[in-house]
């Protein structure tokens, strides 16, 4: 029974972290797409007469940057773990620590 409990605990942890990263990041990406379309106007949006808004492009860049940074951190983490390091966030600055 304790194994079931442990698995559920781990499962819930995985669920929340994966929701944040696996659904949150795509949502930010989608927001970037929306901003890009808003920025481009014209046929990029559903209403064909939409006019371009430069501010949309800026927002899009911000959104895509967040996603790219997250992915780079993800890869760094994978590589680091393989090398026997773990990635920790000291005051939000990612640093490597030897396991």
């Amino acid at each position, binding site marked *: 029974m304790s194994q079931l409990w442990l698995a559920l605990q781990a499962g819930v942890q*995985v*669920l929340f*972290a*994966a929701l944040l990263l696996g659904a949150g990041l795509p949502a930010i990406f*989608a927001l970037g797409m*929306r901003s890009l*379309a808003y920025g481009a106007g014209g046929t990029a949006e*559903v209403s064909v007469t939409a006019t371009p808004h430069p501010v949309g492009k800026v927002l899009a860049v911000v959104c895509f940057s967040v*996603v790219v940074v997250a992915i780079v951190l993800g890869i760094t983490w994978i590589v680091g773990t393989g090398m026997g390091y773990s990635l920790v966030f000291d005051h939000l600055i990612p640093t490597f620590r030897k396991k």
Partner: protein
Amino acid sequence: MVVLGMVILTSLAFDFTNGFHDTANAMATSIATGALKPKMAVALSAVLNLIGAFLSVQVALTVTNSVIRIQDSTGAPDPRLTANGGSALLLIVLAGLVGAIIWNLLTWLLGLPSSSSHALFGGLIGATIAGLGFSAVKWVGTGTKLDGVVGKVILPALLSPLIASVVAMTGTWLIYRLTKKVAEKFRNDGFRWGQIGSASLISLAHGMNDAQKTMGIITLALIASGQWHDLHAVPLWVKGACATAIALGTFIGGWRIIRTLGKGLVEIDSPQGLAADSASAATIIVSSHLGFALSTTHVATGSIIGTGLGRKGAQVRWAVALRMLVAWLITLPSAGLVAALTWAVGHFIGGLAGAIVIFAILVGCAGYMFWHSRKNPVGHHNVTDDWDARAEEVLPIEAEQIEAEKEVVR
């Protein structure tokens, strides 16, 4: 020495099947949505698997410890099994691998994405029961850590598809909601890029996680037969060979499975592809970070089902999903049964001859299944053809009958 050679060859063969069985997990959705051309997708995945495999510097030699008792906690093989050049241990490992490979090939023939790690653990468990009895299997872990067959294999397998599908469903819903005002063409082009990125992450993580298992097993065999003594390192050639085997397998591409996952389960659009791949990548990476090892296959399938549930109007083909579920449930016992039978054959013939006979059985079965697959080949040319429920949601033998009926009608 000859037996050791066969164990190494069989391990690499397993690694190869592991590669092509799991190409689908990372690339099925990218291929289905047209984000990547089929050949390009498998090539990218293969390269990333190769890199991933080489990146796994710290390889645990204790792969088998969570389910069976043939090693101690440092990774050293059980001294009772190492007498006579480790022949007892080598036979268990060889039979276990044979069971795993045969099951992997059979599910591939049927186009079913079953978990390669379940096949491997199932095979090892079956061979251990046959060789050492039920008590040599760690069924339920004790104490405060997840352990044993229940804690490390069964419970994670039950939870992982659920977790992945919830994440993918949420992601899909959010994406469609946020991009409602974006024109379809514009949206699809953008999401294809995101999809390639997340699919690449899955491939990299896969190479790291899965090639390691084989590296650990080959090294265990080397230690048991006295060819290697370091419990903290893996010989470089083992690492190179495993990385190459898994990458080659990935490159060959398990097209049948890619087809089932990419086209059979749900008809997916680019935004759904991104949602599914991100959900898989996040779930796999987070769970291995927390030491809650999940099967890539279960996660990827759960994500794809989730993305079908999250989009209004999308339909999940539950008949296909049900077949997969059945395959998952029987993977562990089936691979175990094949491995146990293989062990018995090897044991009763005995010695070198026994090992040679079971190796020959493996080659024979593999050859037969490959020959059978040529009857209705699935390759990069037809992998994204429209799904024909009547012809494909049946066993290959029935598919042949349906083909024959069509011929008559023509």
